[in-house]
Structure formats: C-alpha cells, structure tokens
C-alpha cells in the first residue's frame, strides 16, 4: 500500500515495521511528530520524557534489556542527551538502538544551526542519512540490523526538510523480532574505566569493520549517467536538490551511510570525473573528509555554509544559472512577525514586566520567548532550555559583586522547568542568590504543538498520569517565598512582582493559566471555565491613547480616526486589555 507520509511519520512507520517495542523522547521541532506518530501504534510503548538526556538513558536501558528502542530529538536536544549517547557508543547494545537527530538548517524554529553529523564522528557512532520518506522508513529497518550486527547504537540524521516533506511510501508488514534475552553482563554494560579502556579498543575495531560495510552497502550507491562530465557526492536532502539541478548532466555518489564514510567507494567514484562537487547543507562534513583522502573537490568555496539549501542556490553556485522570475514589489510587502496569540496567558505577565525598565529578565525556550518581541520587549537573554533559571543566578551573583540593585527575574515555562529548570533552581537555593524565578505554567508544552508533560496529568499515549505539582516541588527544595498567580489578573501579577522585588533571597512566582489554544481535559474545564464573553471598545469612551496596544494583542487594531477596535471573532475574553485601559473604554460584551 502506498501513502504520502512526512519523513517523521515514515520514521515511526519504519520503527513499527522493524519490531520496535519502546521509545522515549522529548518534543522539539522538527522531530516532534515522530513520537506523535509512534504513539498511534499499540504494539509500541512510547513516552514523553522530561528531557532528551532522560529519554536517551531510557532507551539505553531498554536496549540493554533486549528491546529494539528508539529516541528522537531536535539537534540541540542531542546536546542535552550527549552524555549517555557518547558512552553508549562504547557499551554497545543488546536490542538495536537508534537516536534520531532532526537538524534545522535555516533555523526555522531553533536557536542555532549546528550540524549533528559531527556528533557521529565525535561520538564514534555509525550514522544513516535519509533523503526522502521512503528512505526514512526503509533505513530505520536497516539501521536496526546494523546496530545489532555490529553491537553499536545508531545516529539517524534528518533535517527539517526531510522531516516535514511528504513523499510516497510503500508500506510493509511489522516484523515481530521480539525482545532478546537479558542476563547481567558486568564487563559489557558497567562503564568503569577498566571496561571502557577495553571498549574503546573494541569500538575502534568495530569502526574499521563498519568502514568495510560502508564501502559494500547499497545505502551508499552510485547513479551513473553515461555522458556525464560532472560527479556529485552528496547525502540527505541535498541529493534530491542535486538531481533537480544537474539531472543527467551529472553522475551521483549518494551516501546514505555517512559515518564511517566509504573511503574506497569515494576514491573509485572520484577517479572517473574531472569536475567533482560535494553538495551538502551547512558544514563541510563530507568535503573535509574527502579532501583528507587527497581528492580534489569543490564544495563550500561555492555553496554557502549558512542557511538552508534549495535547488536555486545550488544552481546559481555551481552552474552560475540565474533564475528567471516575476519581480516582487518590495514596498508592497510588510513583515508578519509572530506575536503571542489572543488570550495568551503569557501576555499579562510580560506586560507587567515590560513596565519595569530597570529589571533584568532572563528568558528561556518556548512561546514566551516572544516576550522579547515588540511591543513588550521584556527580555534580556535567551540561550537554551533551562538557562532562563540559571542565567538569572549568574546575573544576580555579578550584581552582588557590583552592588547593582537591579532586580533579576528569570522566566521559564512549565515543560522547560521540568526539562532542566529544576536543577537550575536547586543551584539558586543552594548558592542563594537574590533572584525571582517565574514559572509560566500554561498546562501544556506549547511551542512544539501541544504535547503533554509531567505537569498535565496525561501521557503521550493519552493515559492518565499523576500530576507533578510545581508549587510543592519548589517548596520542597527550599524556596520559601512562593506565589501562585493568575497571569490574566494584572493586579495579582503586579503585587507578586512587587513583593518578590523586596524579598531578600530566592523566590518563585508561578503564573498558572492554560494556553489559549489548548484543548482542555474534562477536569481542566471545571478549573478554567471557557469564557462566554468578549471585550469590545466603546468608541465614545476611547480617547485614542493607545495604551491597549502596549499589550500586543493581535485582536486589537488601531485607527487614528476611530481609535482602538477589538475583533470579536478572535477575542477570547482574557480581559488584559480592559485592565490596561485608563478610561474604562473596553467593556465585557455578551457571548462570543
């Protein structure tokens, strides 16, 4: 049967067909849908872990226990997971084990553009790179065979365009490989220095044999066009782009197994072409290794390292072919910067923070990064998951040294707090700094598209789960000053910020209200009743002062002649603008 699947869906299907029984992951664009699809298969136990390191450790354990296991993460998630992954390379597997890394060339939804092919090289883990959805599915099966045959975990490297493009996939049947027998094996699975000195030697030997495999496998194949003068060496989505650009003018060496690279196969292919191009996205991963073989190739001298590639960029770089297109009239195009949604519970908090011009606000990864955007502009830093908490501590400690009395606030979402904010908060309690951490509990993992997390009461599979309550958790680690507020109530927010500002020592504010787009669970509907009203501007009372525009709500527009206007179709009745209006011109009106 043929279906149109995204690369992500195809990876999940490949895992199903390969007899995988367990998976653990943390959401992250562009990898998230792999586990949303995996959760649909009853034969596979799958879960959201609090973070990627936990997820990776779960699958190491599952693999040791004999199951075929999978984890998936975005590229920066692999940084979090790298501790277990690097040592897993030494220990090897019982059941096959795959780590999917979904890189994001072009930073569609990420904070950097790192090329995780270097992780394979660095961690000494064999790597596969699919170029379309059919390959995604088929190569997962192949990866499990390699993992078990060579006793190694596998890195399965995808990019946004492979993850999120749909292409035709022929489906197969599930191969029930079962779960292998487990027996305690101290020399193999206990990573002591003595064991790992031996493991490292063994791993280098495995990599030698894997290089032989790389030269033999049809995962690395040539596509020869008889009269072609150009040879192209490529992998991943760049293969599809290269075929688009060069067609039959070139022959191709398409690498699907890219660590270790097939040195002999590359030499043999290169010998036939005077013009040899390496077409790859981001860093010169292949190019550097091919040049080290003494082969002269053209790559990053012409093809940009930064940004996502497409056929046009490759054609203009290598064929000096300029596209012929209808010119845009730039004056008639305005940007559409993303904003916090209508009724977003983050708005009230950031509006109040935006008024404190002397505060330092360390931000974190999530929708609330948009607190840094106009008109709120209420943020000093965003680095990575959890840094909203720990960077606040760093600021506060330096301010102690400089006798700077600026107040430091750190903001972090609920899911991000569970991910890596807890250890950071422990640092603040342990080493006592005078900062306030604000946990924005919107009852869901929002930015990645509404996944459950340890605080929501449900699992990835939709089963009920214990709710990890944030307030008792932060109290239990020694935060004495904890305030729970409704972020849509500006007075409450203001008072909490004022109190925290004068409190000496670490404190926490929890803003608790569900994401405006969240499909509420039954029990949540009682706690957070759906508003049956909207707010509208009374044009007679509006003095055109524009105060309501400072909350940055997309439901509010302004016309210098008429004043402010609220779109009743998109207003969700949060009332934040009404609380801001100095003339009471914004009033509650009937049902939506």
């Amino acid at each position, binding site marked *: 049967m*043929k*279906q*149109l699947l995204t690369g992500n869906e195809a990876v999940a299907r490949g895992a199903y067909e390969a007899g995988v029984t367990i998976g653990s992951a943390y959401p992250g*664009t*562009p990898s998230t849908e792999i586990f949303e699809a995996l959760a649909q298969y009853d034969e596979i136990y799958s879960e959201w872990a609090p973070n990627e390191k936990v997820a990776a450790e779960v699958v190491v354990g599952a693999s040791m226990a004999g199951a075929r296991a999978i984890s998936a993460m975005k590229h920066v998630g692999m940084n979090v997971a790298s501790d277990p992954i690097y040592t897993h390379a030494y220990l090897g597997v019982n059941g096959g084990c795959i780590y999917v890394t979904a890189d994001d060339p072009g930073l*569609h*939804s990420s904070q950097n553009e790192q090329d995780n092919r270097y992780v394979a090289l660095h961690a000494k883990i064999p790597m596969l790179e699919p170029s*379309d959805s059919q390959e995604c599915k088929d190569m997962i099966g192949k990866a499990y065979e390699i993992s078990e045959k060579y006793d190694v975990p596998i890195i399965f490297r995808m990019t*946004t*365009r492979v993850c*999120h*493009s*749909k*292409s*035709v996939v022929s489906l197969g049947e599930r191969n029930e490989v079962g779960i292998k027998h487990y027996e305690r094996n101290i020399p193999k699975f206990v990573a002591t220095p003595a064991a790992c000195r031996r493991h490292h030697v063994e791993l280098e030997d495995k990599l030698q044999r894997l290089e032989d495999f790389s030269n033999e496998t049809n995962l690395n194949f040539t596509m020869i066009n008889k009269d072609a003068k150009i040879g192209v060496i490529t992998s991943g*989505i760049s293969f*599809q*782009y290269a*075929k*688009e650009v060069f*067609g*039959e003018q070139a022959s191709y060496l398409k690498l699907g197994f890219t660590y270790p690279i097939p040195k002999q196969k590359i030499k043999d292919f290169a010998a036939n072409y005077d013009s040899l191009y390496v077409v790859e996205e981001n860093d010169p991963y292949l190019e550097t290794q091919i040049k080290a073989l003494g082969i002269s190739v053209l790559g990053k001298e012409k093809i940009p390292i930064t940004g996502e590639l*497409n*056929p*046009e*960029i490759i*054609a203009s770089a290598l064929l000096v072919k300029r*596209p*012929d*297109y*209808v*010119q*845009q*009239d730039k*004056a*008639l*195009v*305005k*940007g*559409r*910067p*993303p*904003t*916090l*949604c209508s009724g977003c519970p983050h708005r009230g908090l950031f509006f109040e923070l935006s008024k404190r011009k002397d505060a330092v606000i360390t931000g974190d990864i999530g*929708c609330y990064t*948009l607190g840094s955007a*106009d*008109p709120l502009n209420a943020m000093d830093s965003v680095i990575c998951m959890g840094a909203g908490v720990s960077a606040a501590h760093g600021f506060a400690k330096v301010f102690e040294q400089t006798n700077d009395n600026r107040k430091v606030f750190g903001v972090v979402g609920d899911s991000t707090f569970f991910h890596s904010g807890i250890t950071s908060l422990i640092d603040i309690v342990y080493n006592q700094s005078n900062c306030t951490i604000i946990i924005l509990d919107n009852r869901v993992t929002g930015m990645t*598209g509404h996944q459950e997390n340890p605080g929501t009461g449900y699992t990835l599979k939709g089963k009920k789960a214990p709710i990890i309550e944030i307030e008792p958790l932060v109290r239990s680690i020694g935060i004495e000053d904890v305030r729970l507020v409704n972020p849509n109530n500006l007075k409450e927010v203001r008072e909490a910020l004022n109190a925290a500002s004068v409190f000496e020592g670490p404190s926490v504010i929890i803003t608790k209200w569900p994401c405006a*787009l969240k499909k509420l669970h039954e029990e949540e509907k009682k706690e957070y009743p759906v508003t049956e009203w909207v707010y509208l501007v009374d044009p007679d009372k509006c003095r055109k002062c*524009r105060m309501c*525009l400072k909350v*940055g709500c*997309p439901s*509010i*527009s*302004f*016309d*210098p002649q008429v004043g402010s206007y609220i779109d009743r179709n998109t207003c969700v009745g949060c009332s934040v603008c009404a609380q801001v209006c100095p003339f009471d011109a914004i009033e509650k009106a009937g049902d939506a």
Partner: protein
Amino acid sequence: MITCKNILLVGVGGQGTILTSKILSTGLLNAGYDVKMSEIHGMAQRGGSVSTQVRYGEHVNSPIIGRGEADILIAFEKMEAMRWVEFLSKSGKLIVNDYEIESAPILAGKETYPEGVLETLSKKTSTLVIPATKMAMEMGNIRVMNIIMLGVLVKQAGLASIDWKKEMNNLIKPKFVDINLKAFDLGYQYNIKGY
C-alpha cells in the same frame, strides 16, 4: 529533464493552507502521480506567513522549488501573493483571494497595509482574483474559503478528472463535509474575471 508541475500555496497561519494541500496531494497520489509536498511547521499558528509546496509528475526529486518555478501560485491573502510572487514562473498563473489580513504592526497602526497590491500584481503576471472569503461568508462559514480556492485551482490546473469529493470525504470532519463540497463546487464553477 523530467518535468513536473509545481503548485505553491501561500497564506497566513490559520487560513487552512495545510488541509488544502493535504487534499490536493492525496488526490494527486491516488491519481497515480509521484507527489512531494513540503511545509514548514512552527510559528504558523501565531499569525505568520505560511507556504506549502506541492510538486507532482512522473517522478519528483526535490520537495521544494526555487524562484521562478511555480506553475501556479495560489494565495489566500493579497500581500502574501506579493511576498511569494518571485517563486512564480514567468509563464505561470497567480490565483489570489481578494482579502487582507493585517499583520501585528499594521494592527497597531505602526505600518499601513500596502495599497494597490492586486493592480501591481496583475501588471506583472497573469492574475485571477477570487473574492473567496466574501463567498465563504455568504455561505455562512468563513473557514471554507480554502476549499473555494481549491475548486478554482482544480479547474485552472486541469485536474477535474480526479475524484476530489472522495478525498474531501476522507480528510474533512464529517459535520463539515457538506458545506465544503458546496464550497468546492462554487469555486470550480466560479466565472473568473481577469483583473
């Protein structure tokens, strides 16, 4: 070179580009074409510019195209048509919904919505203007605008032989199927005036 057809669908997050391209690409697959479709998730729900590319033919390589390669650019919003017009081939066709969605800075009165977008576009390229949002509102549901536009697209792309009603039955929630089937017919039969 293998030829394939390229359709670029653009709009603003929430306008239904993804469902439209899903129906389109599934119909093309079931009609026996090789199909690739590419979309970017992420910020779209938050009022951003969104685009989906659908490519079909005997064999498709790249899921995305460069500038000047779309055979049809179908825009659910006027300014988005101008934003993406460089992807249209010089011999391509623009189908645009006569509708404005203001961006956050425009709403806040910091910028103004550009004037004369359709006039300028129609001077640059073959442009078909459809009042699809108005038609959808007259039908009683603004959200079926995308399916009205799909009806127009199917006619313009010469894809009427595909059983679109079957695809819509499979991909649209049952309680919305009827109104969407009507919207499709309305779009398909709409007597287009060039700009």
